[in-house]
């Protein structure tokens, strides 16, 4: 066994409100290690500490051994020279990490030329080779803005590894990608260890950890909960939190209560022969859909196939080219929507209590109904004094459900409501949603690109076909709303 490529001993990080317990790892050529944990577990900080890109205010301590030479964790300057050459970082949301005004090929060629030191001609050849290998033959001339999520991921990978660095650190590589693309990313990352390098992956997705294999470390609040080979840890976790984390995988969820209402009850919404095209392309045609009160209908399909557009049509927010839609009689407020990115659905400048008061004042609602519903949704009273930006994504999404339920909705269109949440939070949120929908006989259309989740939760499924690989990447978060 050659000496380890990457040796980390007793790495600790401390700063304002953050303490990471001493952590060590050793990666030899061909080996992989995955740090698994929920948001706030400190997994990203460890990767950044190794790379040397910790934000101000956080100081690392401990020893690093790279290719046999040892570095003090705090000595970032020394590690800077290794960037690209010995240590490569694949950043989160790679479509933001590419220079928006430079063509994709150029951003790979510059690594070959300036990091690997190839002559201009050779660097261009190497780039063509990389692109061909990654199936991006015609993407070279495009700008990052024109690339889909998956394509951007592969371009970033090529650019990061062009320097020939044996050690690759991948930070949340599958965040914001749908299921088919997730598998492609795992296969992409596996190339490094196969070629004799070492791979360190940071993710909250259990399925990715299982496919990558190698050693898995489960982290919680900066502490190592459990560690060992992937087969053992991910099948039979020893610790209670480990089991709890694995049970959060949709395939292990308990089946929800059966739909009680009779099939012949008037559907909350019924649509026949729906057709819609966008930007000159036919999204779908001749589509029939209906939702009974309390029924959960799943909507599945690749990103960009028109799932959200269908929702907008049913809620009356968008027009439809053909077909007709009937709604069960009732107030327009009965049609509501849950959004994929909770903070984007709230104005970040006001306290939650103020937003709730507005709603109560606007519709003269029963103020007494709020407290029990909050308890039901596991929301602490004190949260009301905070602003949307100051509470977690999970809590904010449950607050959105509270807001919607106060209006006794008949139909709720949930557009990938939990794709950005951690597994455990996702499970809690969805089970609450289903429970309350059944109780209040509110029809739900649940959109997700995780087939296992849809299969487990929904009474019926609606699949939208595969279209030409649309170039629009996952509904990228809108321009950062918070002040630059």
């Amino acid at each position, binding site marked *: 066994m050659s000496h380890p490529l990457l040796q980390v001993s007793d790495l600790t990080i401390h700063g304002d409100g953050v303490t990471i317990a001493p952590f060590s790892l050793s990666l030899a050529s061909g080996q992989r290690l995955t740090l698994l944990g929920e948001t706030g577990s400190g997994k990203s900080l460890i990767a950044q500490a190794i790379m040397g890109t910790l934000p101000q205010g956080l100081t690392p301590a401990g020893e690093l051994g790279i290719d046999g030479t040892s570095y003090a964790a705090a000595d970032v300057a020394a590690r800077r020279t290794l960037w690209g050459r010995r240590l490569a970082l694949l950043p989160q949301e790679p479509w933001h990490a590419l220079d928006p005004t430079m063509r994709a090929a150029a951003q790979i060629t510059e690594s070959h030329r300036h990091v690997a030191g190839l002559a201009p001609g050779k660097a261009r050849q190497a780039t063509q080779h990389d692109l061909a290998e990654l199936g991006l033959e015609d993407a070279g001339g495009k700008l990052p803005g024109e690339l889909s999520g998956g394509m951007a991921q592969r371009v970033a990978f090529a650019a990061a590894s062009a320097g020939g660095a044996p050690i690759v650190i991948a930070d949340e590589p599958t965040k914001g990608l749908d299921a088919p693309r997730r598998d492609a990313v795992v296969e992409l990352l596996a190339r490094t260890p196969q070629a004799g390098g070492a791979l360190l992956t940071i993710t909250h997705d259990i399925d990715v950890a299982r496919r990558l294999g190698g050693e898995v470390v489960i982290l919680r609040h900066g502490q190592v909960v459990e560690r060992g080979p992937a087969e053992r840890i991910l099948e039979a976790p020893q610790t209670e939190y480990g089991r709890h984390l694995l049970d959060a995988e949709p395939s292990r969820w308990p089946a929800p209560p059966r739909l009680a209402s009779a099939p012949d009850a008037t559907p909350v919404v019924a649509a026949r022969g729906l057709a819609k095209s966008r930007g000159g392309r036919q999204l779908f045609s001749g589509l029939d859909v209906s939702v009974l009160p309390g029924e959960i209908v799943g909507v599945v399909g690749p990103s960009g196939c028109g799932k959200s557009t269908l929702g907008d049509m049913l809620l009356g927010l968008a027009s439809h080219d053909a077909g007709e839609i009937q709604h069960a009689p009732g107030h327009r407020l009965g049609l509501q929507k849950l959004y994929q990115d909770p903070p984007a659905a709230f104005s970040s400048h006001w306290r939650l209590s103020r937003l709730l008061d507005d709603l109560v004042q606007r519709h003269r609602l029963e103020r007494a109904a709020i407290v029990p519903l909050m308890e039901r949704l596991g929301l602490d009273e004190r949260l009301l004094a905070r602003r949307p930006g100051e509470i977690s994504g999970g809590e904010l999404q449950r607050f959105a459900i509270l807001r919607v339920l106060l209006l006794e909705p008949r139909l709720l269109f949930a557009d990938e409501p939990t794709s950005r949440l951690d597994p455990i939070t996702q499970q809690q949120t969805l089970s609450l949603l289903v429970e309350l929908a059944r109780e209040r006989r509110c029809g739900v259309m649940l959109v997700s690109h995780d087939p296992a989740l849809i299969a487990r939760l929904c009474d019926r499924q609606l699949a939208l076909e595969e279209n030409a690989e649309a170039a629009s990447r996952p509904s990228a978060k809108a321009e950062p*709303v918070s002040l630059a």
Partner: protein
Amino acid sequence: MMQATLIAPLRRLAWPALSTRQRAGALLLALLLAFAWLVPLWHDADPARQQLVRILELPTLAAPLGTDHLGRDMLARTAAALRLSLGMALLSVVTAAVPGILFGVIAGWRGGWLDRILGSVADACLALPGLLLVLLLVAIAPGNFWALYVGISLVLWIEYFRVVRARTRVLVASPQLEASRLLGFGPLYLFRRHLWPELAPQVLTLAAFGAASAILAMAALGFVSVGLRPPTAELGLMMIELLPYYHEAPWAMAQPILALFVLVFSLNLLAGKDPR
């Protein structure tokens, strides 16, 4: 129920939080305002009263800031000039901000042909040589305040329009407006809760820069003797009248320049990051 929300917006338009730099600017501006409006209370010299025997005198007890080239009391004149300049700045900011924000929101929100029309009108206005318009307007009504002020603030609204339109477009595309609309809130509520808190810091910055450029424009017009009629005390006019005596009585000319400098400096501090 509807009127409740109609009245509500005016009362509860929250002003943006200010950074320390901006707070310093606001403090400096407050000091200047106090100086401009409180001086006449305890120093009752008439800004136009002349004593040709006592011209360009050093500060004395009777005239704490000395006298100008016509023997007029500089303290009273500087205070009066500051009042006029601040009034002018406030006026030009309001008449530029209100249409600018209104059209900006409409263009950003509605988009489509309305956005294109308003956009081309703004571009055309910007192409008009502002200087020529001011000179023509001033020539129509020489020396009167209103022609001067309209000419200067005619072009200022375009900056507000452009910044507000860009910001509104981004916000309209984000889900928060759609969510509130689904929850049954009207357009006024959407403006008050979603748009205004986002626009307020930018508008404040543009207002501060706009006020500063309006004051400097009025001073420039005074320099080419197209400005206000004597004996009005205006910072630009005072500078020009005292310019010839820059060697003999530099402190006299320094006062209007210092007053203008502190005023514009405080506005720049208040302005924060330049959104252009």
